């Protein structure tokens, strides 16, 4: 399976000695869109954090392979350089560096080599337009004083600029108004179209999915994937909830 980019095998993971993931399996091929749904506390965000290499989470068993490399227990920066990206539910504020300079250095880190400032600014401006972002945000300190919606947009802006092989969207749509969800969703769609990258969308709601083609939907309950199906599962969950899986 050459185009398999992510393979999660029987992963068990703890946070502060509490077992959250209990034998999780998942595989993602190039360009696929996977949706992860599940009740609160099932381990959805833990999955994202484990994949991205958050050191707060301990993988006690199993393995994660990404882009052909074993990344179990690897540092987040190495995983990012291999082409994984995750949007955060609560992006942190970093005074002292502008959004633009931050993305530029992350971009250079990932792509290697330097990008000319003029060329970079042009790309950044185009991406910001897609997200209806006020260009003035580029020169503001990273996430400092951004509204919830602007922070989420700034995350999607980084997604558009960094063009990862696999993007994990962790509850990107939560707390956003209808218009912002639409904008964010359009941004995610642009990412898919421009890069052919794969997506893992962790979500409670379906609004963000409206303009995207979903290949697989997984139900995550108590640390395991209990059901996998196509996009139609999303509607079913919306109708019936998770009760019958719990």
């Amino acid at each position, binding site marked *: 399976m050459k185009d398999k980019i992510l393979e999660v095998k029987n992963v068990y993971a703890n946070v502060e000695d509490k077992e959250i993931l209990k034998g999780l399996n998942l595989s993602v091929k190039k360009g696929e869109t996977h949706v992860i749904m599940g009740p609160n506390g099932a381990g959805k965000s833990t999955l994202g954090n484990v994949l*991205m*290499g*958050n*050191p*707060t989470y301990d993988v006690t068993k199993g393995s994660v392979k990404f882009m052909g490399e074993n990344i179990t227990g690897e*540092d*987040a*920066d190495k*995983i*990012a*350089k291999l082409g994984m*990206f*995750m949007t*955060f539910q609560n*992006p*942190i504020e*970093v*005074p*002292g*560096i502008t959004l633009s*300079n*931050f993305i*530029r*250095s*992350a971009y*250079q*880190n*990932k792509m290697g080599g*330097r990008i000319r400032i003029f060329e970079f600014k042009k790309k950044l401006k185009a991406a910001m337009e897609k997200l209806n972002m006020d260009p003035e945000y580029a020169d503001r*300190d990273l996430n400092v004083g951004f509204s919830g919606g602007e922070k989420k947009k700034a995350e999607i802006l*980084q997604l558009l600029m*960094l063009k990862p092989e696999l993007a994990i969207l962790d509850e990107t749509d939560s707390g956003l108004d209808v218009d912002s969800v639409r904008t964010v969703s359009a941004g995610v769609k642009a990412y898919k179209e421009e890069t052919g990258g794969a997506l893992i969308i962790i979500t409670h709601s379906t609004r963000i999915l409206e303009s995207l083609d979903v290949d697989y939907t997984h139900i995550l309950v108590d640390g395991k994937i209990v059901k996998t199906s196509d996009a139609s599962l999303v509607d079913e969950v919306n109708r019936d909830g998770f009760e019958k899986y719990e």
Partner: protein
Amino acid sequence: MKEKTRVDDVDRSIYDIKNKDKDAYRFDSGLTREIVMQLSEEKNDPMWMRKFRLKCLDMFNNMGFPQWGPAIDGLDMDNIVTYVRPKDNKMVADWDEVPEEIKTTFERLGIPEAERESLAGVGAQYDSELVYHNLKEDVKAQGVIYSDLESELHGPYAEMIHEHFMKLIPPEDHKFAALHGAVWSGGSFVYVPPGVKVEIPLQSYFRLNAPGAGQFEHTLIIVDEGADLHFIEGCSAPKYNIANLHAGAVELFVGKNAKMRYSTIENWSKNMYNLNTKKARVEEGGSVEWISGSFGSHVSYLYPTSILAGRGASSEFTGVTFSGGGQDLDTGCKAIHLAPETTSFVNTRSISKDGGKNTFRSSVVVMPQAKNAKASVSCESLMLDSISRSDTIPAMDIRTQDADIGHEAKIGRISDDAVFYLMSRGLSEEEAKALIVSGFADNVSKELPLEYAVEMNNLIRLEMVGAIG
């Protein structure tokens, strides 16, 4: 961050290059009447200064070492050389006339380049004497004086200097003020005439090259009524295994409705005892702003003081102190409100790592006549590991009911979530932490001219990445 700029390539090695001092003229170590008189002779001091130095020496000998701050046992005055100058030194206003080796040192530190690009005037001191002093013609034409104190003692401003010299920082202040009075050498004299606004900053750079030496420069600045000045001070030294001492003095006289901003980036080597004294006196409606970045030295005692003497005078202190392993930095500031409607603001950050020790010490005094005074002190500390230490000692002495006083202190650690967030974008752990620390210190960096802000962030990165990698 790989944001390249001209100063991005600084690393410790630039500060650490030592020049041999075979060509230097130096006094014997220790402190005696003979040495002080020899210094007066060397400098051709006027009679009052000769007497003053000897008076200060007596006071120094009769005063005890401070008992309340970091230990200074490692400092033995018998081993400190009070005066070292390049042989056949003369101060010039042309870099090409500065001795080659010394010129190269300042070039490495980026001083001549900064002068061309962003400064109105530069003074460069090497050990005990100035080797270079220059002021742009258009600033000179406005009547601004920027020179070394020694030559001005024999010039038209001699009387003005006599009236002000060590009046804000009398030798009675403390043992090292007395020491300074006895052996001061070098530094700058600045006078800005009434109403003159100096648009771009002046800078003095102090480089201590000689091992086991002391640097005792005196900076005296008088900003007359309604005038405006930004002065930048930079300091560095290569590292030696024996103690070096810096006991400079800065006296700022800020006239009615005048504005003075005094910025310092201090990067002494880690064998330095930095026992420096800075004071400003601000008249009615005037303001002083201190911007202070303390990175180097083994031990520091540093508390810039603002005396708010006239109605509506104000002071603002913005500082950051970074202590790494083996450093014990006791820094802070003082504000003394002597008149109504005076205001003082203090905003400091301190960072400690690898067992470094930071003490923030402040004192706000509001006298009974200072009705409607306003003071606010805010300090935040960041400890990067569990072996480092941070203390906060704010003192307030408020003697009127009609004052508005606030104080806020916070101590914290770098959040793991923040580091993970930045690493998830491809930054290494060191880079992520350096970025967070730079951001934490941005109260200071955003107040500095761009080149200095970049240099400061480079120093932070150097401290951060050096220790982890």
